[in-house]
């Protein structure tokens, strides 16, 4: 009997507790022109940890909103928070904050404060989903915040033509943030599209970064990250990645980074990394490699670039295998004798060898470095003789009787046919 009583008391207590918990969980604060709360700031201030703030459609001219407790901020029917060029809009100083479906706009260039639309300071598990950020200095700025998710946002700055580099911020900027996920975002019109510094073990997937003044993607000291299915297009200087180990880059597209100082992908001191199945199309230099070692570069397509690969002699132990090189002005160029790098089974459209035993592998080796590309690397002004008849003649003579071009950059087994990968990106994406 006593036991039964105890049980009932226990049950009741649990029920009451459960009820209490649901109230703690569920309270929703509404923000609209006719609601109790007419400004986001008010609602955020009044909300208790775990509350949801629903912001209805309308334009809210607000800035300096600080979220210092775990909240869920949801925009309904596309509300706009207009910073009105007065300062930072949202500052998150709590764990587990979700910001979803809002539009932020108008933040002034601020050299000392680096104002952003959304800034997370030293907290983890922030979720920034499906927001639109227009005309801001920095878009999303995470500092020292781990396990954050940035998904489905659109960050659009301004037309960067003729704008000074220092007057622009980055669209998505992460600093000391580990285990982040950045996916399905679209960033344009900033200095760097996605900027990562000291960001480890993160996943960057399916983003579109274009028309940025400097780099589409820029990372430094960010080990162990995975970049897949991103598109970097028409950025001022392409993509630059530096001082990093253990990265994976797969199925990305580097396109139309065309200009005197542009690269598809610039690798500086990148080691132990893999670069698979990427497409480099119409870049001034498809891939520029400096002091990078132990890279595994496979199944990439280099199409219609100025230089497909510029391999400086400071690179060692890099392997190029099963790549397609088509329509590039120069396939590979180097500034010295980059020995120790390996080219194997690539397809080169300039290859003119034969295949007697019909095993689809050419019988004579191919040397991807042309004499003229060596000359240009050594004496840059000689680039003015591009397309001169003399240059073509020189290259052809050198092909027949190699004497100047580096012995070691050689593809012993070039492929006779263009390699077909499963290039249908959508399909492979589903299958994986």
């Amino acid at each position, binding site marked *: 009997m006593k036991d039964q009583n105890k049980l009932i008391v226990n049950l009741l207590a649990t029920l009451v507790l459960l009820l209490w918990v649901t109230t703690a969980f569920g309270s929703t604060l509404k923000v609209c022109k006719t609601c109790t709360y007419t400004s986001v700031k008010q609602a955020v201030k009044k909300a208790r940890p775990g509350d949801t703030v629903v912001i209805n459609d309308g334009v809210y001219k607000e800035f300096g909103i600080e979220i210092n407790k775990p909240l869920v901020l949801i925009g309904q029917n596309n509300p706009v928070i207009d910073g009105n060029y007065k300062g930072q809009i949202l500052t998150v100083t709590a764990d587990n904050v979700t910001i979803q479906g809002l539009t932020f706009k108008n933040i002034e260039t601020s050299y000392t404060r680096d104002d952003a639309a959304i800034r997370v300071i030293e907290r983890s598990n922030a979720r920034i989903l499906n927001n639109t950020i227009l005309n801001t200095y920095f878009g999303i700025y995470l500092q020292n915040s781990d396990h954050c998710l940035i998904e489905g946002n659109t960050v659009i700055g301004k037309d960067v033509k003729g704008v000074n580099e220092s007057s622009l911020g980055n669209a998505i900027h992460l600093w000391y943030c580990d285990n982040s996920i950045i996916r399905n975002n679209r960033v344009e019109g900033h200095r760097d599209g996605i900027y990562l510094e000291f960001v480890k073990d993160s996943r960057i997937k399916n983003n579109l970064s274009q028309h940025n003044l400097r780099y589409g993607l820029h990372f430094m000291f960010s080990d162990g990250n995975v970049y897949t299915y991103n598109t970097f297009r028409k950025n001022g200087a392409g993509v630059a990645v530096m001082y990093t180990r253990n990265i994976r880059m797969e199925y990305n597209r580097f396109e139309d980074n065309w200009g005197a100082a542009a690269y598809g992908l610039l690798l500086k001191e990148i080691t132990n990394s893999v670069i698979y199945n990427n497409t480099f199309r119409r870049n001034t230099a498809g891939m520029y490699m400096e002091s990078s070692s132990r890279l595994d570069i496979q199944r990439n397509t280099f199409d219609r670039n100025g230089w497909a690969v510029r391999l400086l002699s400071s690179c060692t132990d890099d392997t190029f295998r099963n790549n397609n090189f088509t329509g590039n002005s120069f396939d590979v160029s180097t500034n010295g004798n980059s020995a120790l790098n390996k080219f194997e089974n690539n397809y080169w459209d300039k290859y003119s060898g034969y295949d007697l035993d019909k095993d689809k592998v050419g019988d004579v080796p191919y040397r991807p470095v042309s004499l003229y590309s060596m000359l240009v690397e050594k004496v840059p002004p000689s680039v*003015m003789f591009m397309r001169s008849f*003399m240059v073509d003649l020189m290259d052809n003579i050198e092909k027949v009787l190699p004497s100047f071009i580096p012995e070691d950059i050689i593809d012993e087994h070039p492929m006779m046919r263009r390699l077909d990968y499963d290039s249908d990106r959508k399909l492979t994406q589903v299958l994986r």
Partner: protein
Amino acid sequence: MNKIIKYVFYDIVRNKIVLAYTLFLLLLSVGLFNLGGSPDKGILSLLNLVLLTVPLISIVFATTHFYNSYEFMELLVAQPINRSKIFMSEYLGVSCSLSGAFILGVGLPVMLFGASITGLYLVLTGVFITFIFVALAFLASVITRDKAKGIGIALLLWFYFALIYDGIVLFILYSFSDYPLEHATLALTAFNPVDLGRIIVLLHLDVSALMGYTGALYKSILGSLWGIGLAFGLLLVWILVPVLSSRRIFSRRDL
């Protein structure tokens, strides 16, 4: 003078060679525009062609024409006509007919398939190069009375401008690669009309992005209207110097 030009012009046009030349250019340019995907690519391939074949054909045709019309010129000299007038009409007759063929053969397809400012520069460059190489041919022909020798000199000139000159400059650049050579290269290219023409066109194509610092320097100099004017001015000098000097030789020498 007009009468003589007209006569020379008709004489050449009636000759099947110029017709064949026109057709050859027309066929090649239409083919190249249809093969290459973009008009830019077509212009690029066409540029190589223009810079190689147009000088060769101009110089060989003009030299043989000069020697073949020697008797006609002797006949004219017997009339009360100024020698330099005879020479100039011969020159203008030949170069106008050849550049007419060029404009028909290349200018028309460019206008149809790749009408742009770059295409215009290509056609202008081709016309200038025709005039320059006809002038050089006449210079070669007035130097010597021997037809074989004259053609030899003309071919050598073509060889020099199309090939040897670039080789020499590349060698110089290579030997002095420790020095800043950007401006020197610019000066050196001005001494070869073929290079000058090539660079004028290349700088207006998007290949120019590959040209790095030197290309940027060239673009800053040649990219403006003033610079383009200067470049074509230089090409004009390239016409005037051989024409005037050969006219001088022609009017003084014993025929």
